[in-house]
């Protein structure tokens, strides 16, 4: 093992990790927004929008992210739309993640007892107030484990960003292997970088899930 090599290229990995993190976080935040909209369109059976949401979810969940990225990066320029690597990465991740988040939120909403909505209505709450104070907090508590799993899944999916020439972790590792043939070192640092990114998220999420469980959220009164 060549430790000077590792030392020399650690800053490069750190930079790539930050890029991965930035793209990942942006994509995940947008995924949640898209997921929420889709889930609401389905939950409230909004005509047309609901079918569109369903079709989108099936499409996004049944095609690999790599294919989606290729479509954005190599396909769209053929029809005159040229997007940067970063834009492609964020759009691709959002496209994929939105569908998974929609399903996670939907399972949360469905777990809230119908009588809870009625109880809120009986207090004269408007539809929005009922959502905000009664339904969402409970739905979210139920959805948290699935949402956390999605966040970790999507962060890992960022490893295909290198396919659209984004200088992320995977890209750096491949680069170094290509240039210096230090396969072991490059891969070791790659694994370490992903662990550094994901372990803290994982730990925070387990804590969050435990906390919500003990708070008795999502259980009928």
């Amino acid at each position, binding site marked *: 093992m060549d430790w000077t090599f590792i030392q020399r290229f650690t800053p490069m990995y750190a930079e790539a990790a930050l890029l991965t993190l930035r793209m990942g976080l942006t994509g995940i935040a947008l995924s949640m927004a898209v997921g929420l909209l889709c889930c609401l369109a389905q939950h409230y059976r909004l005509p047309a929008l609901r079918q569109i949401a369903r079709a989108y979810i099936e499409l996004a969940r049944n095609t690999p992210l790599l294919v989606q990225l290729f479509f954005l990066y190599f396909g769209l320029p053929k029809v005159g739309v040229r997007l940067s690597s970063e834009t492609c990465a964020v759009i691709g991740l959002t496209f994929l993640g939105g569908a998974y988040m929609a399903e996670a939120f939907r399972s949360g909403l469905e777990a809230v*007892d119908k*009588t*809870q909505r*009625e*109880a*809120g*209505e*009986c*207090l*004269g*709450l*408007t539809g929005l*107030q009922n959502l905000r*104070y*009664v339904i969402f*907090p*409970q739905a979210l*508590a139920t959805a948290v484990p699935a949402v956390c799993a999605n966040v970790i899944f999507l962060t890992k999916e960022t490893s295909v960003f290198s396919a659209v020439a984004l200088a992320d972790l995977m890209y750096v590792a491949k680069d170094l292997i290509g240039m210096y043939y230090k396969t072991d070192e490059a891969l070791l640092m790659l694994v370490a970088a992903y662990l550094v990114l994901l372990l803290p998220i994982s730990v925070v999420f387990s804590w969050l899930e435990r906390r919500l469980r003990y*708070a*008795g*959220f*999502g*259980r*009928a*009164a």
Partner: protein
Amino acid sequence: MANPLLEVRHISKGFDGTGVLEDVSLTVHEGEVLVVVGPSGCGKSTLLRCINGLERIDSGEILLRGKPITGEKRDLVAVRQKVGMVFQSYDLFPHMDVMGNLLLGPTKALRRPKAEVEAEAMAMLKRVGLEEKAHALPRTLSGGQKQRVALVRAMLMKPEMLLLDEITAALDPEMVREVLNVVLDLAKEGMTMAIVTHEMRFAEAVADRVIFLEGGVIVEEGAPAQFFHHPKTERARQFLNTFVYEAAKKQSENSADA
């Protein structure tokens, strides 16, 4: 008699083509307690749910203080702020403590200042013997306690009328009384109520008027003393007899236990 507060005129309601309520009409006057009894599945819950718009009626009309609350232009939020409802299953919000449950309607729907409502809520909790539970989570309460909180939650909206749907049906016998006492108290204070119950003794004690519903139609209507002791119709008599039988059965079971 005082003014009619609630008028239900010839309403019908069905689910997927099967009629549940057929041409039901009734009036509840201010300060009056109407009790609705009838066999399981006869449409009692549906009737109450139609009144505050949880179910949409197929035909007929419902008026609150003379103003229609059904039809195209209805404002359900406004109606529900005036007509409170409590269910068999309490339906407290599990993610809020008792005080949170109590404050939500008055502060959000009625936009009243929190401090003011909080003081009222504490006073009401005290009245039903739950002041030390103000900051407990619903899941830590007994069924009877939950149901008393649900009653207080509905009352804090200062409704013109309360609808109670079998609020003791899910309770253990020893908790039934603590809940019914609260309702009797409310009745004494002149709260207008429509109550669905299977507790016949309670029904007789609390009712100003009784309606017997069967198969979605009103079969008999009358004063409690008359209805419970000298029912006019054969069907009401049969219905009341099942309770005599159940009471006798319970008694013999109890003595067998002893």
